[in-house]
């Protein structure tokens, strides 16, 4: 380091130095990074247990230096329920993609939210099945071309994209529900604050905290990482509006 300069930003310590397998520009890596930054800042690495899904982020446990459990496809919320009930003092989170949470695991997600289980769900919504080659997901936008909807998603035939954050915010067991995006440095900083808030609410035991992240998939969308930011801004955020959908702590402040 040069003289007269001070460190402003470095890689979080709990994010292992192993190279992540994600495609260049994927927000999965950004999300891993900021979750670990929050864990570092709160000093809870020893008390945090993650549950990884099936999907692109199945190897999340390889990159985060915390305890982890890998769940069967879609069952991360059920596994996290068991972990949190047996170890109520630990911070528990699930990290799930849209194929895992909004397709095969919808029942587990809705019911664990409805029961008000006291853990955090990170839902990464990139509107496509990235891992298996870009097939149509429940969250794929109307008219969006994927490998299984080559003429664009036809809502008359396959239904409308699922807005999970709005859906679970209706449930009484949910304490905090917000939709985030990571497309600019300002939004990444904002997302970090929301993750911190989610862990704080979990500590107070107020109920389920659900954070949906509007993500990108440069490989699945067949564009460059920078072009994928434009798609997020122009198309994704119109259908998936950002903001806090529910916050039980809002009135007490």
């Amino acid at each position, binding site marked *: *380091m*040069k003289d*007269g*300069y*001070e*460190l*402003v*930003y*470095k*890689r*979080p310590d709990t*994010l292992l130095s192993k*190279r*992540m397998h*994600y*495609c*260049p*520009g*994927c*927000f*999965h*890596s*950004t999300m891993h*990074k900021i979750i670990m930054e929050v864990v570092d800042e709160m000093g809870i690495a020893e008390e945090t247990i993650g549950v990884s899904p099936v999907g692109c982020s199945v190897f999340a446990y390889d990159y985060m230096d915390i305890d982890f459990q890998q769940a069967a496809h879609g069952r991360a919320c059920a596994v996290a329920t068991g972990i949190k009930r047996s170890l109520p003092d630990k911070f528990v989170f699930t990290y799930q993609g849209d194929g895992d949470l909004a397709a095969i695991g919808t029942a587990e997600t809705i019911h664990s939210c409805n029961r008000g289980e006291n853990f955090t769900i990170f839902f990464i919504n990139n509107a496509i099945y990235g891992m298996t080659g870009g097939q149509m997901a429940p969250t794929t936008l109307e008219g969006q071309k994927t490998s299984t909807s080559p003429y664009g998603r036809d809502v008359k035939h396959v239904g409308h994209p699922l807005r999970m954050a709005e859906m679970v915010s209706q449930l009484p067991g949910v304490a905090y529900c917000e939709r985030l995006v*990571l497309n*600019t*440095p300002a939004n*990444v*900083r904002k997302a970090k604050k929301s993750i911190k808030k989610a862990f704080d609410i979990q500590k107070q035991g107020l109920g389920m905290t659900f954070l949906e992240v509007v993500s990108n998939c*440069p490989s699945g969308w067949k564009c*460059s*990482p*920078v072009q994928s*930011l434009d798609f997020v801004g122009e198309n994704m955020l119109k259908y998936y509006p950002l903001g806090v959908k529910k916050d039980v702590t809002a009135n007490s402040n």
Partner: protein
Amino acid sequence: MAAKGFVEISVEGCKGCGLCVHHCPVKCLSLKMDDTNSFGLHYAYLSNEETCIGCANCAVICPDAAITVYRKSKAV
């Protein structure tokens, strides 16, 4: 005049997505188009050292946490 800040970018950690180049407010980063790392990817580097302000936008957006940022100390 010395730059207000500087960044160190891990050559092997960089995947060349270009998000840091896109979000740099002073456009001091570039992708090394005449060289690649061992994965065959054009990595980002500090192409204009004079203009870096150490804002850390590049490091915040970097998906692979490959960037370390330093800023000039105020006390000195």
